[in-house]
């Protein structure tokens, strides 16, 4: 069972969201997602200034065996991206919830956070996945 921090929000497509409290959120992919993907070799980041719709594509994570889209769980403007991932994509494997963050968004509609999964609900998603 992969690690699921209790203070984050999640999506069923395995993104995590940290509410920074100032109408901005930090987004990454979960520990479970990185386990499924295997060793990551490349992360395509969104551009700072891009406006992304909820459910839209924000980037791509590429491992030795697959490439998957990162879907944005919320709408808003990209205000920062994790440039460290350009040279060190393995940070997502090693520290999915910390230095492996992917991008930050200024929320267009903070109410969108209410529609996300809490750790408990996401644990159920992962457990269903594993069976």
């Amino acid at each position: 069972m992969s690690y699921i921090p209790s203070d984050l929000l999640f999506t069923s497509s395995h993104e995590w969201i940290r509410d920074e409290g100032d109408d901005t959120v930090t987004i990454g992919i979960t520990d479970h997602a990185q386990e499924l993907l295997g060793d990551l070799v490349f992360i395509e980041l969104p551009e700072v200034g891009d406006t992304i719709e909820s459910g839209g594509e924000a980037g791509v994570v590429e491992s030795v065996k697959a490439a998957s889209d990162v879907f944005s769980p919320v709408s808003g403007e990209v205000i920062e991206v994790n440039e460290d991932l350009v040279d060190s994509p393995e940070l997502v494997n090693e520290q999915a919830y910390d230095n492996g963050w992917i991008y930050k968004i200024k929320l267009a509609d903070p109410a969108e956070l209410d529609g996300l999964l809490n750790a408990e609900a996401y644990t159920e998603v992962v457990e269903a996945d594993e069976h």
Partner: protein
Amino acid sequence: MPFIPHTEEEVRQMLDAIGANSIDDLFDEIPSELRSFSLDRIPDGLPEMEVAQLMHERARKDSNVHCFIGAGAYDHHIPSAVWEIATRGEFYSAYTPYQAEASQGTLQLLYEYQSMMAALMAMDVSNASLYDGASALGEAILMAIRAHRKSKSKKILVPRSLHPAYRAAANTIVKNQNIELIDIPFDETTGKTSLTALNEYAGTDITALVIGQPNFFGVLDDVDELTRWAEENNAMIIAVVNPLAMSILKPPGQWGNNGADIACGEGQPLGIPLSSGGPYFGFMCATQKIVRQMPGRIIGRTVDLDGKQGFSLTLQAREQHIRRSKATSNICTNQGLMVTAATIHMSLLGAEGLARAAAASHDKHRKLVSGLSAIPGVEVKFNTPVFNETVIRLPKKSSEVLESLAADNILAGFDLADDYPELGDALLVCSTEKQSDQSIDLFIEKLEKIC
């Protein structure tokens, strides 16, 4: 790898297993208005003997002619060893093998090809080839759009002096994808891309500038100046070059301050015979920075568990079998056999041999042009350095001149009247190192009589 067709019974079993009634059912996904059900213009099959006779008849038309047509396909000398080796059983396949890593020899050959092309273009990486020069440009444009994410305009500046067939093919490939190809006129005196025209777009959002070297008129463009223009205006640079010419000219990787981002073109001058128009192969090189946006197959060199050298397909996550509809391209193959020949050709000639072939082609062409331009009424259209082709103006209707010379088995050049009516009665004439002095003298003598 033998080709073993399925028996009717096997086909039936497979259809039953997936619950389909007929092979046609498998195509139900495709809307019927997009399908061409009948192939009216495809003739019925012929017996082998009749096919052989027909092909011999057609091939005969290509022999005993003095050909001065270039316009994208060039009759260079190909050492006999090239096709002798390329058609050996070990190499003779049109396909990238499906169990790629089981065919280490093929992968090594493709790896060597990529290394040679990257060196010739002075670029970081090469793919294992594309279909031809024209579709390579289309792919390069799509690649630039994917790679240049800061640019939102999807506007591509394409010189009118670029091969008309390349422009048409690129347009077909990109026209339904909200990409705008903008024509940039050429300077009427020099035949080079007009910087004045280009400057109308200065300071605007342009995704990429295409630069041809030499351009369709054979003219050598100011590639450094054009590249710097694109760099200043944050546009990507797509080089479309004759690979043989790059053995003596400054390669795309060294243009301007930082070089072109993508270099592509037609690989035919590297050991592929004219063959009435194909098959040829397209090539594409790029900078390491944007390699993940590159279409096609890429072979890498690695080591196995025992530390021994091995070759494998690499960066496959870009490709269709993994990325499905989001792949960089629907190309999941390459022109394997043509690339095999080109790799052997480049190996036999080496960097020095390629440069000598290019220089010899240029010399022969100068001899041709000096003779033609001495004919009263015939003039060189652009007074600009060229590689192995030149636009000449005729005092008579170009189509009639071509017809009249064809009666003497002289294919005098490519008539520019349809694509460039503003040039008047103009021919694009070419000569490679293969052209004999007698052929050149005959052409000059016969043209003089007509004009």
